[in-house]
């Protein structure tokens, strides 16, 4: 309610027009509805669960390789934001080579991808769970990427 009052006060003080105020009120209402729906009984627990780490684990059955990477979700989102800027500095010839193979790095919205991964499709926290035979080391390698 206090947000609605603030908007009305802004209209009264002439800081925003009535039309802008209506837009803000609509946006506020639209934001409140999903939050209200989230308290319902039909809401999936995965949808409202907040994850803290993206974990990458690679291990082999003969213990030759053991990799554990814990990436905080906050770091992941920052990487998403930063990746878009960093790709602007990819050399032109490298960019051309990638474009020739159908990869346009400039058009990839990394932050959006990460946001979708974290908020949209994670009913199952296991993103990757693969077992493969490593011929070189004669070992069964397990790769697991999941959020926790």
């Amino acid at each position: 309610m206090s947000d609605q009052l603030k908007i009305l006060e802004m209209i009264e003080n002439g800081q925003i027009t009535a039309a802008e105020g209506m837009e803000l009120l609509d946006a506020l209402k639209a934001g409140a509805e999903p939050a209200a729906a989230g308290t319902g009984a039909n809401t999936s627990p995965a949808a409202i669960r907040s994850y803290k780490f993206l974990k990458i684990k690679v291990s082999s059955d003969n213990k030759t390789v053991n990799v554990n990477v814990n990436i905080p979700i906050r770091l992941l989102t920052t990487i998403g934001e930063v990746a878009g800027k960093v790709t602007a500095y990819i050399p032109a010839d490298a960019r051309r080579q990638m474009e020739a193979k159908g990869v346009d790095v400039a058009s990839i919205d990394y932050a959006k991808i990460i946001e979708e991964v974290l908020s949209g499709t994670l009913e199952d926290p296991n993103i990757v769970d693969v077992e493969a035979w490593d011929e070189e080391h004669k070992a069964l390698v397990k790769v697991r990427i999941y959020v926790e």
Partner: protein
Amino acid sequence: MSNSGHGFLWFRLRVNNGRDIRICFPLSIHVFRELLDSFMDLLSLISVFVPKSPALGSGKSIRTAGELIRALIALLGSVSGDGPYDLLDIETEGVSVSINIR
């Protein structure tokens, strides 16, 4: 600048190929961020004396360095805010590398 969160990156390297070599050193995230901030200020000062013509490469390289440092500062801020944890832990035949946030 925030001083919350956990302040040290601990790098540990262990190589065991006949001789056992262990290297372990902490890096204060706060100090590292301060250094990067100072370096950013220095870059801003240098950029005043560098011609802004896009035909000249030096101005662009300073801007690139500035962008990269800003990105690094943002990454350091994100690394330190989630409590003590093991960022990286790799063990292969005879070599182990770990980076912990403490």
